[in-house]
């Protein structure tokens, strides 16, 4: 019984957190692109005359999305057409639930991981759900009965499937270093220190190549600039061409959820997750000898804040990349995926294995 309540609370809290984050990713995207391009960005939305430099803009955007005419073209393939946005957003949101936002918490004599899905095969779960998200793209493209839609869907599918391989292979190195499939465990394993306790043993220090590969493959999986070939704003609009109103909104939100997911996964695998350096369950243990005892709840809160800060830095970086590079061509994209990322990931696995054998 407590377990059910706990899960319900987690679902509500975590997904509220996730969606709020997504809401503000949209604002960050607008503001960051504006600042990069010497503009100011959306700052007109106001509540009772209170503008706060566009703080309420995401709500205005969301409201607009709700009130837009949701037009279904008469020629579409109805089941697929209606299913596609749902599939997209559901399979983008569920993996977010597998990411631990803080250390697990002991309640009612049981241990509750602070992620909705406290699975011990979290990595596999996320990878499998990510590959299911492809269905949203292909349903959308196919159901639209529009040549541009189909084209976009085809491109999107090919791209997603190709980069799935690169993502999976780049993670193998991480899994070799942190031998667990439980995300919480992986984060725990990153709370170790080397070089006299000064440098945390984060994924990015152990697997720098894997980090870069994962980031690139993840961005490609995300289907955003510079890998936005299925969408290609200036050319074919892509698989959601025939969508309007909230159905388009769901694709749109799924897009940003995927950014959140990518940032969260990167943080978890490579940036030590919710770990603040030298913060352990019972408090700080500094390498210079000092220590600061803290109650477990405070520690969880600090961890959650830490996780969010790392997350936002990653999101900021992803958006920076999106506003820096021009779009890849499709053949270049495939070349990058199959000829660079996949061989490099395999190379990374070999090196990691070799190093591990030598060290052992």
């Amino acid at each position, binding site marked *: 019984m407590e377990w059910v309540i706990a899960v319900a609370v987690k679902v509500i809290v975590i997904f509220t957190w996730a969606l709020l984050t997504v809401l503000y990713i949209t604002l960050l995207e607008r503001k*960051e692109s504006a*600042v990069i*391009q*010497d*503009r*100011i960005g959306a700052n007109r939305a106001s509540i009772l005359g209170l503008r706060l430099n566009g703080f309420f803009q995401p709500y205005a955007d969301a409201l607009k999305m709700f009130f837009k005419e949701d037009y279904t073209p008469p020629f579409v393939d109805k089941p697929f057409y209606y299913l596609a946005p749902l599939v997209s957003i559901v399979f983008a949101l569920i993996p977010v639930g597998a990411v631990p936002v803080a250390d697990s918490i002991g309640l009612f004599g049981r241990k509750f991981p602070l992620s909705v899905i406290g699975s011990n095969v979290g990595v596999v779960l996320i990878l499998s759900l990510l590959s299911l998200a492809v269905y949203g793209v292909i349903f959308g493209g196919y159901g639209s009965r529009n040549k541009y839609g189909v084209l976009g869907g085809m491109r999107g599918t090919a791209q997603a499937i190709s980069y799935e391989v690169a993502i999976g292979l780049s993670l193998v190195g991480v899994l070799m270093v942190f031998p667990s499939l439980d995300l919480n465990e992986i984060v725990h394993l990153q709370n170790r220190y080397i070089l006299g306790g000064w440098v945390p043993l984060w994924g990015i220090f152990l697997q720098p190549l894997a980090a870069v590969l994962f980031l690139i493959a993840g961005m490609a999986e995300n289907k955003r600039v510079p890998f936005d070939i299925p969408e290609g704003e200036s050319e074919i609009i892509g698989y959601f061409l025939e969508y309007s109103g909230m159905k388009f909104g769901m694709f749109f939100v799924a897009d940003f959820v995927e950014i959140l997911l990518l940032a969260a996964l990167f943080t978890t695998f490579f940036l030590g997750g919710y770990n603040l350096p030298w913060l352990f369950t019972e408090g700080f243990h500094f390498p210079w000898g000092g220590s600061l005892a803290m109650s477990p709840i405070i520690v969880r809160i600090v961890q959650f804040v830490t996780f969010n800060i790392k997350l936002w830095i990653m999101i900021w970086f992803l958006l*920076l*990349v999106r506003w820096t*590079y021009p779009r890849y061509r499709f053949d270049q994209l495939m070349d990058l995926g199959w000829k660079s990322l996949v061989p490099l990931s395999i190379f990374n696995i070999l090196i990691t294995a070799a190093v591990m054998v030598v060290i052992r």
Partner: protein
Amino acid sequence: MRLFIEAVKGLGVTMKHFFLNMFYHILRFFHLSHKKGETVTTQYPEEKRETFTRVRLRHRLLSRDDGRLRCVACYMCATACPAQCIYIEAEEDPRNPLEKKPKQFIINLGRCAYCGFCVEACPEDALRMDVHVPEISEYKKEDLLYDIDKLTHW
């Protein structure tokens, strides 16, 4: 590898802009500086850009010293107008030696191309386009037909 370096350089460019502008934005937010950095945005309704003196915006009809229109309804502007958006109806003017004055003078600003030929053509310097108000907008198409009343009050 060279490509990679160039890509990172590109990130550097965007980052430079971001941090520079962000720095000034933050300064401005706390009223520490009024500099805008490299930001070029004009916050339109609150601040307006200064128009150039030679800019051609909406027309106005000028009056003589005695308050009556300079226009003698000679149709030169209507003749010169490439968009054919000027409609004039002339009538007898009791003043000597003017004889002629416009009864109706309509410029269809919905059609106008703002080329300024009418101003060039006017022999009486009665028509000018020097009203520096860029907000030429109406709710109805018909309201874009600017008559004498609208053209003399700007």
